[in-house]
């Protein structure tokens, strides 16, 4: 007999406390990600400074997500290969091949803050956008990524003089200046300009508050997220770790769809690896254990 909720796919507001308890390790990890990357804490940056004798102020810029990618496609990757940021990007994309984009789902402070804002703001799900078809979400995500690569090529090979997309709309920079400003470093706010205001607007308001799951920026504007998911998709074909769906256990309650912050679960319930960030919210939300994080095997 079908689950009662299968009659109509619910777009419920998940009970916040239950969700918090179920996924406590992920949320603790996201807090740890904030402390590791964002100044004034920047524990990882401080660690790196101790290790290599660096003198630069450790901030999230120490681990820039975007410049190494722009350099990769713009023909200058060798220049960032030995940098801390280059190592981070290579590490994240390589780890995604084996384990899925766990950095996005478990550590990234930019994604964590917009997701937290989405969960904290008491706006009903009916006022939030959630694209039901992963094909459309995928199209938007990789469309932007293709455009990002095209701009990086144009700038890198000096085909035209246009402004950089990498730093102009940088979510981590906006996060860093906000964190620095709120913790007493008022000079950080001198960074603000039109691009950063637009980024803040699309990151926390449009992508955070008005998109279900609060991962709008990650889904549509993050090149590292898109590349990590591509790496994960290739890794999945080689039998690496992924979130697998067991249709035999599914009761059709749609809790998985409702809980997925990256809209990776469509009507067939199979997580779309080009969108999934292996947050594993579906594995904890499913009352019948239909989802499992494992290596290889059939879907």
């Amino acid at each position, binding site marked *: 007999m079908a689950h009662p909720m299968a009659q109509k796919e619910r777009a419920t507001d998940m009970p916040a406390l239950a969700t918090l308890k179920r996924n406590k390790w992920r949320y603790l990890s996201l807090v740890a990600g904030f402390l590791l990357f964002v100044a004034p804490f920047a524990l990882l940056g401080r660690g790196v400074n101790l290790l290599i004798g660096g003198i630069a102020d450790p901030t999230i810029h120490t681990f820039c997500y975007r410049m190494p990618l722009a350099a990769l496609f713009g023909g200058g990757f060798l220049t960032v290969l030995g940098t801390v940021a280059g190592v981070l990007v290579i590490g994240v994309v390589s780890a995604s091949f084996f384990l899925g984009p766990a950095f996005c789902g478990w550590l990234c402070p930019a994604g964590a803050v917009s997701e937290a804002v989405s969960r904290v703001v008491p706006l009903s799900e*009916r*006022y939030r*956008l959630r694209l039901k*078809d992963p*094909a*459309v*979400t*995928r*199209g*938007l*995500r*990789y*469309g*932007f990524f*293709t*455009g*990002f690569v*095209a*701009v990086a090529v*144009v700038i890198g090979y000096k085909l035209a*003089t*246009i*402004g*950089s*997309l990498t*730093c*102009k*709309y940088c979510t981590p920079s906006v996060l860093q200046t906000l964190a620095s400003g709120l913790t007493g470093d008022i000079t950080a706010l001198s960074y603000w*300009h*039109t*691009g*950063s*205001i*637009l980024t803040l*607007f*699309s990151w926390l308001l*449009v992508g955070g508050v*008005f998109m279900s799951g609060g991962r709008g920026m990650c889904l*549509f504007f993050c090149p590292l997220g898109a590349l990590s998911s591509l790496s994960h998709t290739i890794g999945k074909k080689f039998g690496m770790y992924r979130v697998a769906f067991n249709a035999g256990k599914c009761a059709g309650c749609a809790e998985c769809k409702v809980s997925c912050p990256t809209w990776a679960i469509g009507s067939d319930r199979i997580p779309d690896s080009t969108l999934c960030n292996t947050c594993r919210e579906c594995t904890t939300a499913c009352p019948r254990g239909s989802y499992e994080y494992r290596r290889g095997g059939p879907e």
Partner: protein
Amino acid sequence: MIPALVREKTGMLAFGIAALFPPFATLIPASCGVACGGCPLTGGCLAIPAVAAGIGVFSSRPRIRAIATRIREGIAKLS
């Protein structure tokens, strides 16, 4: 149920639109990243497409549409 072909076409359309976004985004604010400042709006005009898109998404919700219809009907009665 949307046929797979239509779904793929929609996905491709979404891809095309999104692919145009980054090149255009490089053309707005000044290349140094500073607000353009060419007029008293100081770059505020750039928020117009985002606000319009937000209103479009928000007003497509059935409940909002119903409220808007009731407001229109109320105005019609008053006039």
